[in-house]
């Protein structure tokens, strides 16, 4: 098992890239012996971010690339997602109220709500030509695969 591991992948802005993304996350987590429960959370958080970018990030219909980097050390995994879409900080979106009645519930905002809860830290960085979102997942002893 390698403790320090990193991988980077460029994917097209298409939902068809979700399965390749899932494969990359799975391979990374297995090499790093990350617990499957943690792998599930990373997979889900990344899908939500990726889907958001594909659906809402671009004003044109040209192909774009989304760069994803996964890096781990002994204690945490750091994931960065970079796109060249319009400037948008998803962390400024209104916090989802999960206590409202069924009739008022929609899934708007649910994706970023999941990301906030599945990850330990989420940070946004505005770049000259786009956005970067940093996700941090701490590795707890009991979460490590034995």
């Amino acid at each position, binding site marked *: 098992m390698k403790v320090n591991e990193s991988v980077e992948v460029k994917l097209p802005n298409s939902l068809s890239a979700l399965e390749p993304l899932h494969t990359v996350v799975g391979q990374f987590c297995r090499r790093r012996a990350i617990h499957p*429960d943690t792998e599930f959370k990373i997979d889900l958080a990344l*899908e939500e971010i990726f889907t958001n970018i594909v659906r809402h990030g671009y004003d044109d219909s040209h192909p774009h690339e989304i760069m994803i980097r996964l890096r781990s050390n002994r204690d945490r995994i750091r994931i960065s997602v970079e796109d060249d879409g319009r400037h948008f900080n998803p962390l400024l979106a209104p916090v989802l109220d999960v206590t409202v009645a069924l009739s008022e519930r929609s*899934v708007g905002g649910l994706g970023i709500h999941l990301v906030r809860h599945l990850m330990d830290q989420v940070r946004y960085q505005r770049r000259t030509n786009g956005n970067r979102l940093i996700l941090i997942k701490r590795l707890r002893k009991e979460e490590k695969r034995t």
Partner: protein
Amino acid sequence: MTVREGKIDSFALVEVTGRVNSENSETLKDFLQELGKREQQVLIDCSALEYISSSGLGALLMLLKLIQNKGGILRLFSLSPRIAEVFEISGFDKFFPIFSSLEAARRADT
């Protein structure tokens, strides 16, 4: 992802297996929309559901509203701990009656 439909007692029994992500959730949504229009009582078997993201949750929410609006029953059963946690974080565990097994779901008091 695969979706299969059967029948048990007066319930439509739907099994959703594999991974429901934002690429394939429209397929699930179309299926559930059609189901929700014609069925009154629905059980959903989640025992082989490995993964679901917010778009799949949206498809289930749509079905729940369709069924509840006509006074019907929708119950989920056999969620894995990972899927159950996604439901809890989303607040969906308060909307969906969730049971441990098919037997528990079909015998629950209405």
